[in-house]
């Protein structure tokens, strides 16, 4: 028997959602508004701002940098995540809990600390800042997310499936490709999408480490100084939010599919996104 919550809680929930999404809702509103000033009342519908995006060369470069960084970060953190999640799910070794715990710490470390620490280390090492230094930073913050997602995929896999494969004459490598990989593929896709999204949106670390290879968020931050360009930024923001939203939904779809496939007995919602 489920009882209804009090009305006051319902009102609270509605306000909470408005608080969360109202600012984001302003993005499409002004992205399509035919006025250089971000203010009500709206003055008409236009696609002019999107056209402007199309013509800005610096933006394209920033977008290219961001995409490149996001793709390499996604592949890198997912690869590291596969190793760690497999080790945590299958093997017992001394200090396992501590090691896994430490791997997950960057999840809660303030990014500004990570950024400052990284820039100190990189400069000491004599490396010049570039897209690659951003990638290093992003892999660092994305790997814990990848591990969390992949661990749920690996943990849900019945160990006897691997044993059955070996029992039927398959070797370890063959077992990995014929049984393990197909069963964790949805988890891998989900991990790729989430780390891609995180990297694409990330500002602080990128700002510290970017050098001359400006990423999209850093470019946007630079543009905020010119009020006239604000509507175009709104348009860009709208596109990015849409993309992020789409990617996260896709990732979540694959994560749930992974749980179903591996026969996760728990109706498990133990991922990051419940």
């Amino acid at each position: 028997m489920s009882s209804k919550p009090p009305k006051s809680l319902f009102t609270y929930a509605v306000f909470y959602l408005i608080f969360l999404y109202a600012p984001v809702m302003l993005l499409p509103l002004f992205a399509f508004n035919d006025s250089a000033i971000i203010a009500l009342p709206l003055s008409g519908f236009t696609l002019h701002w999107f056209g402007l995006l199309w013509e800005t060369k610096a933006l394209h470069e920033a977008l290219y940098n961001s995409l490149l960084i996001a793709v390499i970060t996604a592949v890198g953190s997912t690869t590291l995540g596969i190793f760690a999640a497999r080790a945590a799910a299958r093997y017992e070794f001394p200090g396992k809990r501590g090691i896994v715990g430490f791997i997950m710490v960057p999840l809660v470390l303030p990014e500004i600390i990570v950024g400052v620490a990284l820039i100190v280390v990189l400069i000491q090492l004599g490396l010049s800042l570039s897209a690659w230094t951003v990638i290093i930073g992003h892999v660092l913050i994305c790997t814990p997310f990848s591990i969390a997602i992949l661990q749920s995929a690996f943990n849900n896999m019945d160990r006897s499936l691997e044993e059955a494969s070996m029992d039927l004459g398959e070797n370890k490598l063959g077992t990995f490709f014929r049984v393990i990989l197909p069963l964790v593929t949805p988890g891998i896709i989900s991990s790729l999408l989430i780390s891609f999204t995180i990297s694409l949106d990330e500002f602080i670390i990128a700002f510290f480490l970017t050098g001359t290879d400006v990423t999209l968020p850093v470019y946007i931050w630079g543009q905020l100084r010119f009020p006239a360009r604000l509507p175009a930024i709104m348009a860009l923001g709208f596109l990015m939010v849409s993309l992020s939203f789409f990617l996260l939904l896709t990732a979540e779809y694959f994560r749930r599919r992974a749980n179903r496939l591996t026969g996760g007995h728990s109706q498990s919602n133990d991922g990051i996104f419940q």
Partner: protein
Amino acid sequence: MKRPQKTNKQIINIKGVEKQFGDVTALNGVSLTIKEGEFFSLLGPSGCGKTTLLRMISGFDSPNLGSVYIDGSDMTNVPPNQRPTNMVFQSYAIFPHLNVAENVGYGLKKQKLPKDEIKLRVEEALALVDLEGYGAREAHALSGGQRQRVALARALIMKPKVLLLDEPLSALDKKLRETMQGELRKLQRTVGITFVLVTHDQEEALTMSDRIAVMFDGKIAQLDTPEGLYKRPKTKRVASFIGVMNFIPAKVIASTKTKLSLDVEALGKVDVGASDTIKSGEKITVGIRPEMLTILYEETDDADNVFSGIIVSASYYGDMTYYEVELGNTAIRATVSMRNTAGRPVLRAGTETRIGWGYESITVLDG
């Protein structure tokens, strides 16, 4: 898939196997031989080491000490994918991303056989387990019983020298389990392959096996045929694990070539069949199965040993009546079959009666 029936050839030979997991001793010096074509069961409570022993035959665990021979070759450190054994897992381990035919053909695909041959042999294997036409079925659409059949087909298609079954019926409901017991036995006779079954269910072991090894605490407590185990259990523990038995402490008064005279607590003098190993003066336990007791209704009825007692309780089940009888100050369970009481009423609690049994029905137990 016909194979030669039972021979006297040894197919599995386990010599002095020991296994520790950390501080826990899973196997403590196990030696046994299994004959070709035999239906062999490892029976015992959970934690007795039966599954560890099976995993040693399959190659998933290796012993700390001792060796495992399969069909004459030392397999102690050979990995599972190079052993002539195949396993039916407790969870069945059906590959969830493959359909039935792909599951069954998994091992053959590794052998790189031509597609037509794989297809043919998969159909053959599915027919063997009564799953013709299920090839295209997705794994998740199978019932528990069907999953088990797929697991069987997937193992048998490899033509193993030994088929290993890890509690294969424990996930099924009671009715299906009983059907599958019969089917597994029939299947074993059809293919003629040696089956090694792990189970904690004594009834399952008794009904299906040619021979059973009863295991406790990492050791084989007794290895015998089902009939031998039931009729001549060696220890109290084996006796109480296989069926129901009354235990009565006793002292040996005299030991002769033909019979053993015992002073049984609460009952007085009892004579049983002779034993070579037990000497006069020793303290022992005797066991007697409830169904070996006879109620002597008539004054003239007689038996090797006769005592009088009082019925404490009676449970009538139609075909059987279960009595609890007090003899002296010992309570004994007695099962009386309908056949032997034809025409007589069930004895009520409080009734005084005479109980009798034969020399042969008493088992002398160690410990």
